[in-house]
């Protein structure tokens, strides 16, 4: 049974990196298409639209971060895998889920806002400051999820 605990814990870590990363991959891709379209006509917009394209990429990084923290706690990275109970393993899985799920959904919706903002900047380059804010609003929820996942993982680590 102890192996099963470790299995669920690693599943959680993997899901955080996988699902949030998939969301960011999709999101950055969507925004990249819009950005490339703008650069066709306005090559000098490259710097601005690149920043907007990158905004939905942070969820993937947060997912990676959670996966890393979880695996570090489990001793998978550079150490002996810890022997943990099934309950603890499931708790790790649960702790990773906010980042995985909210990361995925927020990355894609942030990308939609980023695409719209890229269109905005292409027509009104002076509105770059504001255009960055719309996607950033969505990211708030990814940050909350990140926070809860981190706090939960460190909390679970303390369970015996």
């Amino acid at each position, binding site marked *: 049974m102890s192996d099963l605990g470790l299995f669920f814990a690693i599943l959680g870590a993997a899901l955080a990196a996988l699902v949030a990363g998939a969301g960011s991959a999709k999101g950055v891709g969507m925004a990249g298409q819009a950005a490339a379209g703008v650069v066709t006509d306005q090559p000098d917009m490259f710097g601005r639209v690149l920043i907007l394209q990158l905004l939905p990429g942070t969820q993937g990084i947060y997912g990676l971060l959670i996966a890393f923290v979880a695996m570090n706690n489990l001793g998978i990275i550079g150490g002996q895998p810890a022997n943990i109970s099934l309950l603890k393993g499931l708790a790790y899985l649960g702790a990773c889920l906010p980042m995985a799920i909210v990361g995925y959904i927020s990355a894609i919706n942030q990308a939609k806002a980023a695409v719209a903002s890229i269109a905005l900047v292409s027509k009104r380059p002076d509105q770059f400051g504001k255009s960055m804010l719309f996607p950033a609003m969505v*990211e708030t929820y990814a940050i909350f999820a990140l926070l809860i996942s981190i706090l939960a993982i460190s909390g679970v680590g303390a369970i015996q």
Partner: protein
Amino acid sequence: MAVLPMKRVLIAGLRKNRKQMLELLQRQGVMEISIRKPGETATDPVFTLTDTTGIRATFEKSITLAGQSLAVLDAVSPPENAGGGLFSGRERMSLTDYETNTKKRDRIMDMVYEIQSLNKRRLEIAAEIPKTESQLEAIAPWMEFSHPLDFTGTKSTRTFLGALPNDVPEEAIREGIGNDAAAVDIVSHSGEQTCIAVTCLKKDAEAVEEALRRMSFARPAVSGDVPAKQKEALSVKLERLAGEDEELKKKIAAFAPRRDEIRFIADYFRLRSDKYEVIGSLEQTDRVFIVRGYVAARDAANLEELLTTRFDCVVEFSDPAPDEEAPVALSNNGYAAPVEGVIASYAMPAKGEIDPTFLASIFYYFLFGMMLSDAAYGLIMVVGVAVVLAKNKDSIEPGMRKTLKMFQYAGIGTMFWGVMFGAYFGDLPQVIMRTFFHTEIGSLALWCEPTLQPMTVLGVAFIIGIIHIFVGMGALAYTDIKQGKVMDAVYDVGFWYLLLVGAIGILLNTDMVGGMFGLHLNLPASVILVFEILAGIGAVGVVLFGGRDSSNWGLRIGKGLYALYGISSYLSDILSYSRLLALGLATGVISSVFNSMAAMVAAPPVIGPILFTLIVVVGHVLNLAINALGAYVHTNRLEYVEFFGKFYNGGGKPFEPFTENTKHYRVSE
């Protein structure tokens, strides 16, 4: 910390001085000139207005042509300092140089036209080359055919030239034709097609043609002379085109030494086009012209002196009317001014609002620093900006300078929090000591490590948030009082202060919230009572006065209750500051991910340390870039949403002086 006071200005000058006066104003760049809207008429029938749209259109065309020629020239012969001048602004040009160059304008435009026509020919060649190449390709299967391609036969024979789909053997073709008297020559064959020449007697021609058609015989896409001759002619043509293109390239490249003249001419027409926009807005008589606009009060005396000493003119200043929306410019001290760009990209202060720059700047560097929080990253930002500023100190544009300064100060904030959290490229010092020297040096944090004590840092993040929000509310009270609405300040800010302070006090004493942060205050009942009374007064005040714009008491209380419900938005505002911890953690943890990856490969001698360095350098460059972007975006968000949301709407019209709106040169006296 202020919105610059503006003066209305009216200048009346002589027509003969119009050019010099306007150019002086343009170079000074201190006055916003009121531009006439389409359809607007003169204020007095004495004056006439000039329509300059036609002449401006020709200037704009010249600007476009010069820009295109410059792009053509840059493509053929790239400028030497390409990309190096990312931060360097426009080059300075003295007035004498400007005037010398102006005299050469026709010759420069001749060059622009010349480059345009050379490039036009290059475009034609660029279209012709692939056309010729495809002709060569089409003729290739017929190379073995020794007669002209439009050969149809002799006096008594007919020859059919064409292709059959797929690779068809000779026997199959003969069989398909079914005429022993017909001669079948296979000119070439490949997987896709078989090119054949079928010769038959004239009398059999129709039958043979019909048979061929059944086999999907298709006439060749090419015709004309003997293929070998055609090929030679086409090859010669290709060579000639390529040669001509090279010649044209050389001719265009020969203009490279005069590149600066093209840059100049683009700027020259930009200046003239802008000037004629102003001329179109002038009220004029035969001898006199009048220009109106705004100037910052501090520049007024200077402007008047400059104009009146050089020209016969009248300069009049007046204060804007109380209800007039004068354009807004900001003026701040060296600490706050770099943040002006952040304010401008939100909105300029509307009439009666305060300039939020200074208040925003107090928090800006601090919040940014807490989110990036790495002493080494901060140092890189501080030193990097210093180097860029030193390298471009003569030419850098003021806006770019401010932005860079902002990142430099944010770098200082980052260093501060990095030292607090003990992050120097994350945990790189510890990793190096552990990996190469097998020593544990422990934490370097001056205060605490967020990864080890997240709840402590989260608590501090909330406290910073509460202070930020309270300062924002204070700014609303200040604005209200400045506008004479003292009671509004009490109702909208005072009661909320009481309510929030009371509520926070009560919450911290509860097991749930206090326990979360490891606080077990167990405040004496009398203190709790004080908090409860504060919260009570605040809540009652909000309910009674939150809906004071309604005269119906029932409606007023209802609205007041709804206003009280707004406390939930304060809760979510404060929770939003948890991003200070989250983004700080992100920087730290990603750093340690890269550091651990580097440590894993560090074991082998020589190659190990090299790989270690490589991973560390690449990893931290990436981490700095992505997290600096995140810190920038989210600092802006906290300022725009949580902070400005409390007191600042904006909506003022930014001050846009009549100035040299050029790309390459800045003309100065």
